[in-house]
């Protein structure tokens, strides 16, 4: 039996490798050889290859090393992961509408809880940021492409296998169950110790997937650092580098120091689980894991939030009709957050009984990080103050970001204080706090970016009214869900449980209603996104947001304008005026009624 299995696997692997070789031979024939990184060309002048066309169909997407295509791949991937992670949590919230175990089993709830966290942080959060940075950083800094285009492609293609491994436990594979370790993977549970079922291969697969996603993020980070340092156009200096590039540069620095550590810790855990090492099973092993994990885990929070802050800092001034107030200080605060983020990790461990003197120092740094965060917040508010505000969908999401970030941030300041933390630790208060940041802020900034740049990457305009429905449902849903969680935490409801005491039922039901409102909002988003992409009005103007009126045009729109100008005309006449969602020259009422039809 065992031998047969091995034989089958060998044959399968052999056939697969031969298929790969055959496919490569075909593709290689079709290609011409032009070294990309080497700079020179083989047997000919560079001009011969300038008009190189991309292959068509699926092969184009499988072989592309163009930063814009890879950005699109990242975006598509992230949105699929967002849908998966979102549907997981909808199931969980429906289960939580009732205090007892009704819809799904407690163990399945634990599995969903684990996968929801990992999916949203590693398969949605990081990739959606990479989508924007891949597409726009080279355009913003006037680079031809990323510094290492092929590494860029490798970094993306590591992600689909990572997702399959992370979700492997949910697939019908015999003897494999989903991990139930929560995204923090605390030992000894995750080391498979004891009588539980976490020795299962599903946990190993999840760890491998997580490791892969870390490798991918690290590759991307190295690429962005190299690109921003070396590939800038000569007109782009450090003094006039845009805010989004600054945040991506800082984020990449954080990734460079944080993710390899996660990778190492995961390898140690895998060795503990499979090869009998004892990194985490000796005395102090559990606390060692927490130190290693959170030394990565807390910077990870800033890895996820800094680029969205950059998007908001870029988009919000465009619709306030002014330049970003205190630009320099926004950059300084970004760098300050980047540095401080490595000095706060043990605030996740205040309740573990570590040395009180250590706790105090971590409390001090954690409180201090509120200062640069507040600098940003006040700068956003001051940018809008007395500005010519245009409440377009991306602007609404930016304002929603600021609003939610304030609630998420202030609740975090309380948690940074040791005595408060000891009361609220492991309650829903923590869950509410960080969801205000990850959903209310990070996802909102993601949506702001998706709407703001929609004309660039689709060549079309989204439907204005649907965009506003999406925003308001998301805003109401987010605040309903996560404010209820904060109140639940004050009431003492512990996190991570599939069942609870009846006294918490009302607030849990409020949170569930909020989650369902969020679901409706996201369905509208998907509809709007897909339909507008396929059938939306084509953008004819390189400046659909009328940024030129306030002298706020950035490089990516200049690029877009050039692209439109050089496009081959098809001779068709434009039928209707473009709906620019807040643009001055457009008859909004007409556009909206047309979109609604």
């Amino acid at each position, binding site marked *: 039996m065992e031998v047969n299995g*091995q034989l089958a*696997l*060998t044959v*399968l*692997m*052999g056939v*697969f*490798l031969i298929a*790969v070789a055959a496919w*490569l*031979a075909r*593709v*290689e*024939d079709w*290609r011409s*050889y*032009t*070294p*990309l*990184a*080497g700079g*020179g060309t*083989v047997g000919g002048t560079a001009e011969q*290859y*300038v008009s*190189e*066309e*991309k*292959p068509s169909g699926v092969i*184009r997407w499988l*072989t*592309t*090393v*163009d*930063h*814009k295509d890879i950005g699109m791949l990242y975006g598509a991937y992230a949105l699929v992961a967002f849908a998966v992670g979102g549907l997981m949590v909808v199931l969980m919230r429906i289960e939580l509408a009732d205090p007892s175990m009704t819809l799904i089993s407690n163990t399945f709830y634990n599995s969903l809880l684990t996968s929801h966290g990992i999916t949203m942080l590693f398969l949605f959060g990081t990739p959606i940021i990479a989508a924007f940075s891949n597409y726009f950083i*080279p*355009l913003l800094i*006037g*680079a*031809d492409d990323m510094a290492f*285009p*092929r590494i860029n*492609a*490798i970094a*993306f*293609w*590591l992600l689909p*296998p*990572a997702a399959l*491994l992370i979700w492997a436990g949910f697939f019908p594979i015999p003897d494999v169950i989903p991990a139930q370790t929560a995204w923090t993977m605390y030992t000894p549970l995750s080391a498979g110790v004891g009588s539980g079922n976490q020795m299962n291969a599903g946990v*190993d697969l999840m760890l*491998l997937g997580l490791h*892969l996603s870390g*490798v991918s993020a690290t590759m991307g980070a190295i690429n962005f650092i190299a690109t921003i340092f070396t590939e800038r156009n000569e007109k782009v200096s450090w003094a006039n580098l845009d805010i989004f590039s600054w945040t991506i540069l800082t984020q990449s620095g954080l990734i460079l120091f944080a993710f390899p550590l996660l990778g190492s810790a995961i390898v140690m855990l895998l060795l503990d689980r*499979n090869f009998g090492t004892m990194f985490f099973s000796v005395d102090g092993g559990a606390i060692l894991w927490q130190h290693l994990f959170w030394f990565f885990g807390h910077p990870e929070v800033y890895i996820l939030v800094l680029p969205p802050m950059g998007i908001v800092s870029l988009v919000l001034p465009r619709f306030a009709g002014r330049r970003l107030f205190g630009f320099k200080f926004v950059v300084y605060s970004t760098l300050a957050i980047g540095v401080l983020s490595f000095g706060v990790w043990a605030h996740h461990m205040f309740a573990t009984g570590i040395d009180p003197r250590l706790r105090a120092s971590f409390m001090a740094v954690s409180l201090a990080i509120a200062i640069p965060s507040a600098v940003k917040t006040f700068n956003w508010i001051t940018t809008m103050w007395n500005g010519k505000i245009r409440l377009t969908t991306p602007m609404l999401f930016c304002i929603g970001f600021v609003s939610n970030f304030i609630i998420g941030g202030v609740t975090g300041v309380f948690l940074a204080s040791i005595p408060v933390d000891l009361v609220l630790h492991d309650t829903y208060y923590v869950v509410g706090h960080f969801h205000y940041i990850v959903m209310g802020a990070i996802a909102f900034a993601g949506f702001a970016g998706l709407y703001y740049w929609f004309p660039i990457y689709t060549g079309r305009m989204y439907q204005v009214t649907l965009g506003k429905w999406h925003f308001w449902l998301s805003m109401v849903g987010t605040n309903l869900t996560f404010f209820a969680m904060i109140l639940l935490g004050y009431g003492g409801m512990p996190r991570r449980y599939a069942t609870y005491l009846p006294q918490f039922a009302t607030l849990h039901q409020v949170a569930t209603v909020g989650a369902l409102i969020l679901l409706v909002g996201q369905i509208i988003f998907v509809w709007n996104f897909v339909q507008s992409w396929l059938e939306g009005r084509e953008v004819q103007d390189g400046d659909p947001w009328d940024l030129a009126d306030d002298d706020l045009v950035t490089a990516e729109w200049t*690029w877009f304008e050039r*692209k*439109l100008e050089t496009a*081959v005309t098809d001779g068709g006449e434009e039928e209707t005026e473009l709906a620019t969602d807040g643009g001055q020259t457009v008859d909004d009422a007409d556009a909206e009624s047309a979109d609604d039809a």
Partner: protein
Amino acid sequence: MDEAPGLSDQYRTASPWPVFIALGIPISELGLLFGLFPLAVGGLLLFGGSVVGILKESGYVTSTIRAVTALAVIFLAFGAGLAFTDIALVTRGYAVIAAAILLVVGGVVFELFVREQRQTF
């Protein structure tokens, strides 16, 4: 509109190798972690071959056979470390060694037969 020259469209924008490098890593990891010999060998072959392919394509190496050999030496050292030291993960070590040997064989075959054929086009 898509055919319009953008900033980056003037450069080579396609390479077949990244997908296979990205597939080779998880396949070999799975094989080595769970001790599945064929997966480990196949994954390492896929990974090693694609690395050489991408290095050749981008002009970082000129000789396929030398790049393959260099990679095989690294694999050999790693495999020997697994198989013949106190780590004593013998099957996994042999899998890596087998991959190294097959990689060199593949490189030689490519050098002797495939490359010449292609040059006749």
